[in-house]
């Protein structure tokens, strides 16, 4: 058995956890105590072991590292369950010895190979061009109707005045959002749903309403718009872009530093945003991944590392969202990501981005030489300029910096900067 299976970092493993409580539970099991007969193999890349829980029989846990995929005899509905996370952490710490896979592990791994082949066949059948064109025409008709209805609704809000709307509950926004979901305009739907968050401040509400209005106006004259602006509008409305289409576009090769990651979950779906910044190009990129609640998100981009890779950007005036088309080397650790040297420079970049994409709600910033300061919480640079922080408990950040200049990566929005990573003395700290 070859024992050169490259191990993942603990951060990489923990990023697979479907929620913080699984992370916590998994870390509790990432120790030798509860495990028996744990082993790992390089081909196929897999881990397995028996975990003693509260019951009489130990759970059988197996992980296929190539996907990764998991199976465990425990009753948890989470994927991966805490046992799989614990087992991977144990392996990541170097405490799982190489061994030939036992029979029960081999059986499962073989059954998976069969299923993968069938799934590929199904995907090939769905890609028929005639079917795709008909689907798109149907969808466009629905979206047109939805946009017209939204415009009537928006002008109604303004006719009645926002003074009353400020007190409206979530239902006020959700019913309009639901109609937009039916109209197959999920981008508009979520923009309307998010209005509830701005409702308390008339200033923010009016700005957001204006921007949604602008989007509907742009959509109505989409045929007159330049191709890249039209693509931006379509994506904001919520037209899907096929992965194959994106991957067929031009590639940008660079060393991409992973500067931050943030997960946002609603009742059905978890979205993971991973922000990249090109060491050579200085470009920012956003890689999204989605998972149904309880399922694992991909974890192949780890903050604090960089990858030499080709990225393909989704079409648009301000290409930001991207797919990793091809990796050229293993990820390696970075001690300081590329970024803006002053806050003023970062704000200039943001303004330029807004000019291309007025609906930009989050913009990545990597700021060098800033100091987290308390009350009101802000980042201060050496010229005394300050950006407000959008963080409930910034003490970790403050402690990690210790009043010294550090590098902070985060998402800028109207609420302020939400830090996602901090580099202090070449060490990455998550806020």
């Amino acid at each position: 058995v070859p024992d050169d299976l490259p191990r993942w970092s603990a951060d990489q493993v923990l990023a697979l956890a479907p929620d913080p409580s699984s992370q916590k539970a998994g870390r509790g099991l990432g120790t030798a105590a509860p495990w028996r007969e744990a082993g790992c193999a390089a081909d196929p890349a897999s881990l397995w072991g028996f975990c003693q829980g509260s019951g009489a029989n130990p759970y059988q846990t197996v992980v296929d590292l190539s996907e990764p995929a998991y199976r465990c005899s425990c009753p948890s509905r989470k994927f991966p369950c805490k046992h799989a996370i614990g087992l991977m952490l144990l392996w990541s710490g170097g405490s799982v010895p190489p061994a030939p896979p036992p029979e029960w592990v081999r059986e499962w791994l073989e059954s998976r190979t069969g299923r993968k082949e069938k799934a590929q066949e199904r995907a090939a059948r769905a890609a028929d061009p005639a079917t795709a064109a008909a689907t798109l025409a149907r969808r466009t008709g629905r979206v047109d109707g939805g946009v017209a209805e939204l415009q009537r609704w928006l002008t109604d809000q303004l006719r009645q005045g926002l003074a009353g709307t400020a007190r409206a509950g979530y239902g006020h926004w959700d019913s309009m959002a639901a109609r937009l979901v039916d109209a197959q305009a999920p981008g508009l739907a979520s923009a309307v749903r998010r209005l509830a968050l701005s409702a308390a401040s008339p200033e923010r509400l009016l700005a957001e309403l204006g921007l949604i209005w602008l989007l509907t106006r742009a959509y109505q004259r989409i045929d007159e718009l330049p191709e890249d602006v039209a693509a931006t509008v379509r994506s904001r409305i919520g037209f899907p872009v096929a992965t194959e289409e994106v991957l067929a576009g031009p590639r940008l090769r660079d060393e991409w530093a992973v500067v931050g990651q943030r997960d946002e979950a609603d009742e059905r779906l978890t979205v993971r945003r991973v922000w990249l910044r090109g060491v050579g190009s200085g470009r920012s990129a956003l890689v999204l991944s989605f998972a149904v609640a309880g399922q694992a998100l991909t974890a192949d981009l780890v903050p604090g590392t960089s990858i030499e890779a080709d990225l393909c950007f989704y079409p648009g005036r301000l290409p930001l969202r991207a797919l990793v088309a091809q990796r050229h080397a293993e990820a390696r650790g970075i001690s300081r990501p590329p970024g803006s040297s002053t806050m003023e420079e970062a704000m200039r970049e943001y303004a330029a981005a807004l000019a291309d994409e007025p609906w930009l709600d989050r913009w990545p910033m990597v700021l060098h030489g800033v100091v987290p300061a308390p009350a009101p919480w802000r980042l201060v640079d050496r010229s005394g300029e300050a950006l407000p922080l959008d963080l409930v408990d910034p003490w970790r950040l403050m402690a990690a910096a210790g009043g010294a200049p550090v590098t902070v990566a985060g998402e800028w929005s109207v609420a302020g900067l939400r830090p996602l990573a901090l580099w202090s003395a070449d060490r990455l700290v998550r806020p």
Partner: protein
Amino acid sequence: MSGWSELLSAALLGTSRAPDQGDDAAADLLDRAAAWAGYRRAGAVLATGSQPPAAAEAESLPVVAAAAAGRLALLLEESGSGATRFLDAATRESMVDEWLATARARGRLVPPELLPALLDYGLPRRDLREAIAAAGGVRAQWLAQHNPQWTYLGGIADGSTVDNPELWATGTHAQRLGYLATARRTGPALARALLEAEWPALTAEERPGLLAILREGLGPDDEALLERALDDRRREVRLEAQRLLAGLDSSAYNARAAARALAVLAPVGASLTVTPPAECDKAMRRDGIAPKPPTGMGERAWWLEEVLANAPLWTWPSPSPEELLGRSVDEDWAATVYRGLARAAATRRDPDWAAATLDRLGDAPRDRELRAALYPVLAPANLVDRATRALAGGAAAEWGLLLSHCPTPWPPELARAVLSGVWTLAQQPKLSGELYHLCRLAALRLPVGTAGEARALAERAAADPTARTTALESLADVLSLRLDLNREIS
């Protein structure tokens, strides 16, 4: 284009309510709002003239490695999952303590980003605070200066923050306490002088706490103030003064107590003559002799016990405690005499007297309480020796108390005795409560080097259908966790 604020008022009011507005007024307003929104966002101006906090000074020690940091983060989390049933809040607390102590011993620091969680953890846990201050390094002190909740750290390692005479004159009670404690550390005489000058003006609430500050650096020069405090109206003040005066070997208080003791228990030849006190006078009460006996006990016997308990052990001019206690004594008074002397041994923390009096105590409830008070006073070797014998003898009540007071981690001979005791209990189904109790005690106190042996025992028990296994497995689990914890800190 009208300004943003006019636009906002129009939007709040609603275009239907404004006069001379056409049908497109709402659409027009939205158009302008979009333009303004982009303008305002792109043109956001940075605040200027901000002062960052002064930087923390550099640490002289390195931070622990990532694995150890992860372990501490896990222990600090509120509801860590229990991989084993012993891993409850109390166990975790003890492991945090062990983590901090190990880091301190190896000269390693807590990573700065974990300090907020650790400082919060220390809020309700006074026992941990010193260890937190040590493993938190300079950064913890720096952080505490910025968060009023964490200022408790300031008082522990760094007195300079309260070195301000203004505080003594005008500060709150807590600030005055802090100031006097610092002053006492740097100049005991000056601090006493400050307190003496202020004494008559102090309120009844302030006196006990301030007087207790004299515990540090206590000396003969403090006696005058303490004698004065013996007459205080407040009981807490009198008790504190008695405690402090008892701690001054040469005090007049101790001399009075010794004279009283020799009057009631006189070594005459090879025996001890007992003359219980006839009364409990005002002078005795002033020195802390309680006049009222507990229910079921005669007054004179009680006064005898009190007088003996109150006396310094140097009262007894004997080559050794053993020799004195070996002398014959009137049988009616013997139990009372031993109890009184045992109490003196406990309060004065004398290991030789504790060992000598322990074996002469009886089995009454009060004797058992007294034994529990004497165990922590025993010399470690004596304690371990007794615990080892008690385990072999099998009296659970006794080894439970002894083991909980033995110095940790347990020395090899005690560890061996405990592990063999665990195995004996595992084979006796009727004693599952004792087994659980012993495993729980042992899990946090055995040296981590025994993790392997404990695991072997648990496996041996699993293979033996008559043996109980759960407690053994939990014991082995906690020990492996502690072993991991110890290896990680580097």
